[in-house]
């Protein structure tokens, strides 16, 4: 098939960017979206032009590196997948496809379609852990039985891949879904109780410091999340936060 691509090009963080048109022929249905961009880049290189830079790594939907807005949607038109799992059979011959980086103040552009998501790391560093040293002699793993439903809920929250689609999809560029997923995982598990108060306060404080917007319950984050992280996590984090405030 033949496509009309419109792609955001930006030399570096300090330069001004712009949309550039790239027509592309010979795209096959079985190609993944990123393989389609590989083909375009090969053509650009052979013409002596600089290829389009985009973040990607595992190409199987789990590392959370790839991050493209495609026709205004985070990770493109299909749901419950990342860009690297999107295939060209989701498009038609002659389609115009607009490709942009994640748009959020807290995710500044590094080059072309690549953004800086270290704000997410700093939120995790603020409290996304259980303070236990490696010793080789903690209690036996089966000493604390955990109800299967609770363990499954914690697991579901823990499947967040930190891609940032929730922020990109949100009109306020809020990071509530991302932050709440980690808060929820630990709030649900007995191991996480000891530090629950500090954790939610520290992580929310860091989230605000990074310049993410507020949550106004539009739910766009849940719709676009490739792992289907539920809005319930935001509700749980709000409850945790309130409890922490009362305790403090």
């Amino acid at each position, binding site marked *: 098939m033949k496509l009309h691509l419109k792609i955001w090009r930006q*030399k570096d963080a300090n330069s001004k960017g712009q949309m550039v048109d790239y027509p592309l022929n010979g795209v*096959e249905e*079985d190609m993944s979206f*990123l*393989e389609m961009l*590989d*083909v375009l880049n*090969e053509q650009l*290189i*052979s013409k*002596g032009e600089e*290829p389009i*830079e985009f973040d*990607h*790594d*595992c*190409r*199987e939907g*789990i*590392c*959370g*590196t790839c991050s493209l807005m495609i026709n205004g949607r985070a990770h493109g038109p299909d749901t419950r*997948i990342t860009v690297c*799992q999107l*295939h060209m059979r989701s498009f038609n011959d002659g389609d115009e496809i607009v490709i942009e980086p994640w748009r959020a103040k807290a995710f500044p552009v*590094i*080059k072309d379609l690549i953004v*800086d*998501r*270290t704000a997410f*790391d700093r939120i*995790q*560093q*603020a409290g*996304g*852990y*259980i303070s*236990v040293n*490696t*010793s*080789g*002699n*903690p*209690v036996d*793993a*089966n000493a604390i*039985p955990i*109800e*299967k439903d609770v*363990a*499954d809920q*914690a*697991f579901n929250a*823990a*499947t967040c891949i*930190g891609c940032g689609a929730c922020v990109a999809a949100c009109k306020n560029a809020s990071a509530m879904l991302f932050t709440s997923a980690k808060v929820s*995982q630990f709030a649900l*598990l007995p*191991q*996480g109780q000891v530090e629950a108060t500090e954790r939610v306060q520290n992580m929310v404080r860091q989230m605000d410091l990074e310049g993410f917007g507020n949550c106004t319950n539009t739910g766009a984050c849940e719709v676009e999340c490739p792992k289907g992280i539920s809005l319930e996590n935001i509700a749980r984090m709000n409850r945790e936060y309130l409890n922490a405030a009362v305790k403090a």
Partner: protein
Amino acid sequence: MGILDSKVPSGPLADKWTNHKNHIELVNPANKRNIDVIVVGTGLAGGSAAATLAELGYNVKTFCYQDSPRRAHSIAAQGGINAAKNYQGDGDSVYRLFYDTVKGGDYRSREANVYRLAEVSTNIIDQCVAQGVPFAREYGGLLDNRSFGGVLVSRTFYAKGQTGQQLLLGAYAAMNRQIQRGKIQSHTRHEMLDLVLVDGKARGIIARNLVTGEIERHSAHAVVLATGGYGNLFFLSTYCMGANVMAAWKAHKKGAFFANPCFTQIHPTCIPVSGDHQSKLTLMSESLRNDGRIWVPKRLEDAKAIREGKLKPTQLKEEDRDYYLERRYPAFGNLVPRDVASRAAKERCDAGYGVNKTGEAVYLDFDAAIMRYGREKALTSGMKDADDKTVRKLGEEIVEAKYGNLFQMYEKIVDQNPYKTPMMIYPAVHYTMGGLWVDYNLQTTIPGCYAAGECNFSDHGANRLGASALMQGLADGYFVLPYTIGDYLSNDIRTGKIPTDSPEFDQAETHVRERLEKLMSGKGEHSVDYYHKKLGKIMWNKCGMSRNAKELQEAIDEIAELRADFWENVRVPGTADSKNQELEKAGRVADFLELGELFAKDALTRNESCGGHFREEYQTPEGEALRDDENFTFVSAWEYKGEPKDAVLHKEELVYENIEVKTRSYK
């Protein structure tokens, strides 16, 4: 052969590790604060090592090429992690895990290392649960287990098909805690371009900031390499796109021996190649072989009709299907080890029974499992006379709960529904057992340079068992390296900070800059990917699932030729002093073009078949691998001498005192 001292402690096997820990030197807490350690790579091995070293009090600097440690490719491991907990009461023990691993590795791994691995495996599960890793649980609230290939017990802990993700996020969280305490300085989007030796000891690295292109010097008292495997040598593999051998290869060029480079794991259950544009292959977890049955048509004409789209697999009657693994290996059936399953698939496809357009695919069928689970569920729900449709629906729900994310992944890529029609699979490069040679302390042949996880060669011999990569990564990082490295660092308590303005750092940086310039100055005929794909084709066709002397020699010549062409004609656009993904790729492919030749040379030298290394000249009349224990019970450790063809072989003889070396049989 004095240099290849494996430093395995004396004494009975079961006491070696404990005795060793009791006798090695320690560094007191106040002195640890004056000692710096660099950790390159932040996957399971690097992340867990960095966190633990920082907890102990060392100043740790981590480096990864990804934008966050959370993205390392350990995250993609699906099926699970082994541990000798014996929670299922099915007769598992440390000894049995040790035995299975040595046997699975076809008697080409070091006994003492493997025993230690099995010994600390139980600690890993305790540690991870304490960190809040949400493993799968049973209704009683206790941890669940499943079975993997090559074993007869259920010792695999898992978190759906995302076990690697959950374990990595556990190690990442442990790192984050230390970053917050200021004990780890994390350098993301950085790539190590060289190792710096001072007085023969590893004392730092030269790294490139991948965002700005700046070349940086970092010093430390020891350097830990945990940079994973080199399977991307084959271009198409289940590795992530960025996986590379650069750090390990630079260390090799500075004196670290490279062990068993030709021991590669080709995983039997991957989604088959669909076309030339393909950039990577996707694994379907081995756990699927718990329930999926592998088959091809019995008759050639049926296979042909299926390839031409005239016949559907579901139309083929039970008696017209060849469940070749169950036929050839009745004891282990579909759960034979990976090397055996991969070769069996290739054998059937080479004989003309392949089932997709390219003729390189076999079926993995869940129909029997869906009906079996469905009937059981119907009975336990009180539906004695449930019809087939209801049973199927119930069964599909259970299969979805077990493997839902894998089935979804398959459907998104292939556009077929695996609940309704069997999956198509074919082997693909997945893991490398070879790597930097290390002694019992995980130290390479360079003093102060350590290697952990897939980056080293130590535990899996010639074939790795499923769910053992996660185990080894975390064993090395949490429980082995943080202690053994103290023995070395105890000599550095008076050394003080290592300066970065020494002639050794100057020289290393100059060398790095020259190489980058050279990469940028190719005449510009072809892109980096052009060369990578060509190399991949040579590797897959001549150094892949089966090898012979003639083709290996051809591979050696062709790779050397391709390497010369690369340096002459590669085209790298952009500049070296800014973000440049093509330049990053070029540096990685340049290393693969050297390693590839050593790989072929290693395979040519090993005149036997063992594990993942199958030499056509050495097989039984039934086509099984024929090992030569008399002449090849050793580790091949290669010393760099300039061109790959000049590499010098050193042997570490393998001694089995606690296990009887037998022909590996899964029949």
